[in-house]
């Protein structure tokens, strides 16, 4: 758990190397988070891996901050096995233009995880080698993990019992 000072040191190192990348830092419950500009994600993660020892990308996940804007968020959880420490990176993108640079060329583990974020939230990862839906069917419409996506919004396939379940076909 990087303390607040350690987090600022990491952020300071990043600011020297990539002046526009870090938008802010957040220290919450003993865990450090860096807020990163979506245009510099790949360079930031590469820099952290090369120069700071954050060698393991544990997880990529999406968050929807509806109704705030920029609405969609992508989180990267980094792990340093040498320091036994974790660091979170956070990217916020506008729902009008949800484009984030893909880190899959550098970290093969992001392949499936970015596809999941794309599938569930509609964040487009530029440079991903094979950006398709992963959990939902290929012809599915919409992104089900968004906060405004209705629960139970799927049409009933077998319409003969539709009248006995009014309100289920939204």
């Amino acid at each position, binding site marked *: 758990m990087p303390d607040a000072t350690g987090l600022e040191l990491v952020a300071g190192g990043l600011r020297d190397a990539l002046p526009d990348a870090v938008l802010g830092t957040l220290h919450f419950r003993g865990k450090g988070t860096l807020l990163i500009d979506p245009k510099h994600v790949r360079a930031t993660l590469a820099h952290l891996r090369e120069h700071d020892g954050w060698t393991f990308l544990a997880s990529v996940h999406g968050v929807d901050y509806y109704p705030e804007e920029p609405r969609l968020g992508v989180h990267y959880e980094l792990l340093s096995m040498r320091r036994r420490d974790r660091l979170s990176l956070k990217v916020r993108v506008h729902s009008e233009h949800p484009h984030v640079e893909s880190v899959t060329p550098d970290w*093969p583990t992001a392949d499936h*995880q970015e596809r999941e974020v794309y599938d569930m939230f509609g964040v487009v990862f530029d440079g991903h080698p094979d950006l398709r839906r992963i959990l939902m069917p290929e012809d599915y419409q919409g992104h089900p993990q968004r906060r405004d996506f209705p629960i139970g919004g799927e049409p009933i396939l077998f319409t003969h019992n539709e009248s006995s379940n009014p309100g289920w076909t939204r």
Partner: protein
Amino acid sequence: MEDSVDLAELKQPVGELDSELLTLNMGPHHPATHGVLRLLVQLDGEIVRDIKPIIGYVHTGIEKTAEDKSYWKAIPVVERMDYLSYFFNAYAYCGAVETLLDLEVPKRAQYLRVIHMELNRIMSHLVWLGTSALDLGAMSMFWYCFREREKILDLFEQSTGQRMHTRYFQVGGVMEDVPDGWIENVRKFTADMPERVRQYRALLNKNEILLQRLKGVCPLDEETLFGLGVTGPLLRAAGNPWDLRKAMPYSSYEDFDFQIPVGTEGDNYDRYMVRVQEMLESVKIIDQALDKLPDGPVITDNRKVALPPRHELATSMEALIHHFKLVTEGFRVPPGEVYHPCEAPRGELACFVRSDGSSKPARVHMRDPSFVNLQATAPMCKDAYIADLIATLAMLDPVLGGIDR
């Protein structure tokens, strides 16, 4: 007749066969895929050239469902993702919510969690050992492993009331203390288990067929596994001793003395040996936890979060109000985002919880180890035989419920 066939001529290579690649769909329903997994395999004769895993067949939207429930009622749905490591799912989720609440878990509850999680780890490894031995043609192993698994499920039934999906872990501790006699039953089990594991190894390690199908098959080096984000026994089999229980201890794991089994080659045999030895290490942890089990409460005394004890409800109005509020509305959690990892049987299982200050989680996301590890199938099985693909998939130990959620 004698001189009509020249054997030396037969051994000459025929030259380039005009062969083409065959695309084979393995699954979604196939006994070797351990669930509803479809593998798009590109075959050159019997040799695997490429694999594309296709998943999502049991996607039930558990993460979306959890957003519609209070923090408390989301525990059972989260548990149902990975049906072989339900205590770990519950731990990752509860731990994340506890971190958000800044809540201290009593020592006895931490120890009880450790005991249940390690029993769960043995159980998960037993299912893996039984089913993968079945994939490799060893039928009786399956029955032996499920016999032991049954004993663990009996222990769970005694302590939690359920055999699977127990909902035993609570935000702030565990549901109830273990009943009288349970500790003795666990001790009987742990006393029995090392001998059982010795028998399994005697049965499998002298089996020439099994060894040939495991040793040196589908190895993958540590660096590639690292880049693929693979954790757990697969990474340890390649020689990296990374284990969260040891490296970044949680839930009192620092109190126990145990070893991390590490392989050297990173092949299927090492993956098998690492898991078998892990069962013995889990037995050691359980024994120590039972020895040192402290007295005290099993759930936090914060009545805003934990249900009041049953006997107080009859006499205390305050307790009744708290009970009513918790059951109807749940508790509110300060806004924030937390990523809480733990070492599950298949690797790093983590839960990401975002709170917006209400009594329902705004986002629950599981970093499921099987989901990430599945990406390793293609590099592992490249240029191996299709029969080795079956063995490697078994050694990967994916649980499709966890992958698809």
